[in-house]
């Protein structure tokens, strides 16, 4: 790491970058404050602008970080505490793909990947990242080259293939944290397996980082991560209030830091601010959807390219997406994380990710959310290129209706590929769903 690189990094990412991003945030906050308040949705949380600042700063650092800090790419469900404790700069391709989707670049990048031989049937996040790599284009300026890739299949098996392909293209070592799928409760050997792998990761990551892992630092990062996830859970659970002060769409936007930066004090500060703003809304009786008539659960990934359209469409019918089990994925680890025993706690936490659990478990979880959040219906996003999340929805929907009298809507789309989305069909189905809820 030469001095020139370090100086350049400091000047661009911190000295010049921070004030510039702060200015952008203030402009954004002013825009939110001046927004038209006559629509069906209340203007976004001010914290949304703060989050954009936080993530933009992370991406800005990423542009100049190679040669200054070691870089680890990780899947969104991967254990990051060991990497953070070793000082790696973290980059999450899943988040990048989602960002591309939200900026409506997912389809174009997917088409580039398809032109290079990738099938339209594979995950559109993966296609987005492949396309971005082939085109050498990204909305974040420049993506840091990985020194290490850590992937965990606790969200799907797809990430194994996706990250392995990226590792091959970039000639970077790939470390897998393999998490056996839990059809039932975790067995001791499954927990031991994940723990063993985390212990195997330490020397691999130490060698690349060029330093020894400080156990104390690992405990500190784990404590921060747990606090961050706890705060995230609190934020999500504020949606139990009627009217809900935030929607699942807000949560989709605000989840970035808990996915990729959960061990960092800045993320804790950020979520504390979010919580304060939400509590202010509750105190003032402000609902995210002005005329909240129906409260629903969103199952599966968001439809990134139509997030705003979808939230407005639902709000126009008085439907508030109070909670999503997708965003809950990053709240759940908190209950298992243990700063006193960080490796064992991480093994439990990452094994028990909701996406790594059975359809029956997910159904029980939906039932609990329906009760906790007093929900009237469930929107099951049948996500064409995300099989692990989508398989089981047909039976889950039927069971919810039969057992709880709660109607559901299976909405066929894709998280990043807009070609799958049929606006007319979706509108018709949402109207019919609203009628079903009464």
């Amino acid at each position: 790491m030469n001095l020139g690189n370090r100086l350049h990094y400091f000047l661009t990412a911190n000295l010049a970058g921070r004030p510039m991003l702060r200015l952008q945030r203030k402009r954004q906050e002013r825009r939110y404050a001046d927004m038209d308040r006559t629509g069906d949705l209340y203007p976004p949380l001010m914290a949304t602008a703060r989050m954009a600042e936080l993530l933009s700063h992370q991406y800005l650092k990423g542009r100049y970080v190679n040669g200054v800090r070691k870089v680890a790419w990780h899947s969104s469900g991967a254990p990051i505490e060991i990497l953070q404790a070793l000082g790696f700069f973290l980059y999450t391709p899943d988040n990048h793909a989602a960002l591309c989707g939200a900026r409506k670049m997912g389809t174009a990048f997917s088409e580039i990947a398809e032109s290079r031989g990738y099938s339209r049937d594979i995950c559109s996040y993966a296609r987005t990242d492949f396309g971005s790599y082939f085109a050498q284009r990204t909305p974040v300026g420049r993506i840091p080259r990985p020194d290490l890739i850590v992937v965990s299949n606790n969200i799907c098996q797809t990430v194994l293939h996706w990250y392995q392909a990226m590792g091959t293209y970039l000639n970077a070592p790939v470390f897998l944290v393999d998490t056996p799928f839990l059809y039932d409760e975790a067995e001791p050997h499954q927990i031991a397996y994940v723990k063993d792998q985390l212990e195997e990761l330490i020397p691999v990551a130490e060698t690349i980082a060029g330093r020894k892992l400080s156990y104390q630092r690992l405990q500190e990062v784990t404590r921060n991560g747990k606090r961050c996830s706890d705060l995230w859970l609190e934020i999500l659970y504020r949606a139990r209030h009627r009217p809900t002060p935030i929607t699942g769409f807000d949560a989709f936007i605000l989840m970035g830091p808990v996915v990729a930066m959960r061990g960092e004090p800045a993320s804790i500060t950020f979520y504390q601010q979010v919580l304060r703003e939400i509590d202010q809304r509750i105190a003032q009786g402000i609902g995210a959807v002005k005329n909240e008539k129906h409260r629903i659960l969103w199952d599966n990934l968001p439809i990134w390219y139509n997030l705003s359209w979808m939230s407005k469409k639902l709000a126009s019918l008085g439907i508030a997406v109070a909670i999503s089990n997708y965003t809950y994925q990053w709240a759940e680890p908190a209950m298992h994380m243990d700063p006193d025993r960080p490796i064992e706690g991480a093994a439990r936490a990452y094994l028990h990710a909701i996406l790594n659990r059975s359809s029956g478990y997910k159904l029980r979880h939906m039932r609990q959310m329906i009760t906790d959040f007093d929900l009237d219906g469930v929107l099951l996003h049948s996500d064409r290129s995300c099989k692990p999340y989508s398989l089981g929805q047909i039976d889950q929907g039927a069971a919810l209706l039969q057992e709880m009298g709660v109607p559901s809507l299976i909405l066929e789309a894709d998280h990043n590929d807009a070609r799958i989305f049929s606006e007319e069909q979706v509108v018709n189905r949402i109207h019919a769903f609203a009628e079903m809820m009464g």
Partner: protein
Amino acid sequence: MKIPDRKTVIDDAIASGYRIGAVLPFHYPRALLRAYDIYPVELWGPPRVDAMDGRQHFPEYTCQIVLKATRFLLSPQADSVSCMLIPHTCDSLQGMASVIKDFIPMDKPVFTLYHPRGRRKSDLTYIEQELRSLGRKLEAFTGKSPDDKRLLAEIEREEAANTVFGHMCQHRDQYSVSDKRFYTCLRSREYLSPEQFIEQAQGLPRGRAELAGPRLMLSGIVPEPLDLFDHINGFGAHVVTDDLACYSRRIYQGGDASDPYQRLARIMISMPPDPTVSTPYSERFTYLTDRIRQNRVQGIIVYNPKFCEPELFYLPMLEDAVRAMGCSFLFIEHELSSDVPQQILNRINAFVETLT
């Protein structure tokens, strides 16, 4: 020598006191099932079953093996099945196991097996414990407690069949039969006992195979229907080697541990590079290009059922690697069925013509 059909074999197994275990693709411990008197019969579809009923539980973008197997297991044809084993090969089979266990009332248990995605020390330790866990579940189901000696004996029976199977996969040119006959014999390993399979394999005429015309490698999951081989031969080409999940990806090495579970564990991670167990791509490409070279393959046909995600990720890189060594490449996606659609045949025919 005529290969006994599945129904006859299943009836005989039941008459001999076995329970029938339907097993989904594709790495699993045959010997462990047999030690508990469960007779494994593999389900790769089946192709003749209508997939529509499976769609009552799964979206249309689900692979046909899952749709058809679910439909089959719900039908009266599966009455002879006592239990199921669904290895966690991919997200689709994971989804199938989960949906069947949680939502579809069946009077037969579903066992699952998670195969580790690596070959590290932790992976070996894990698979041994996973097999022990499966053993405990089989014990609870069957009420039987086979001792180590019995389990070792079953392992040795399977190792003998594995050796013959592996030899066949690696020496297609030593069998002077048509491709269809050769590969049909190999697939009988999916339901015959080890001894029956060895007998069938040994009954194949040996000698130098007349493999004139373009030399092909068939890759992918499963070559359904097996008539595909006759069509390929009809176009003047031959499948001189394969990289199919039902064949060469199941060439297992024998073990030598005296503890049966340790031995089974070693066998279970001894297969060639395989995307479903997340072998690094570079290792897999080296393995495949070596085989292409050794077998003087001129063209590779990747023949996959639609929506098979583990296969789809590495294909662009494999195509580049294969073409770089002067070998042609064709990718075909198919729906499992009892006939090969004419469109697919036309593509294969045109591909073979480019090699001639």
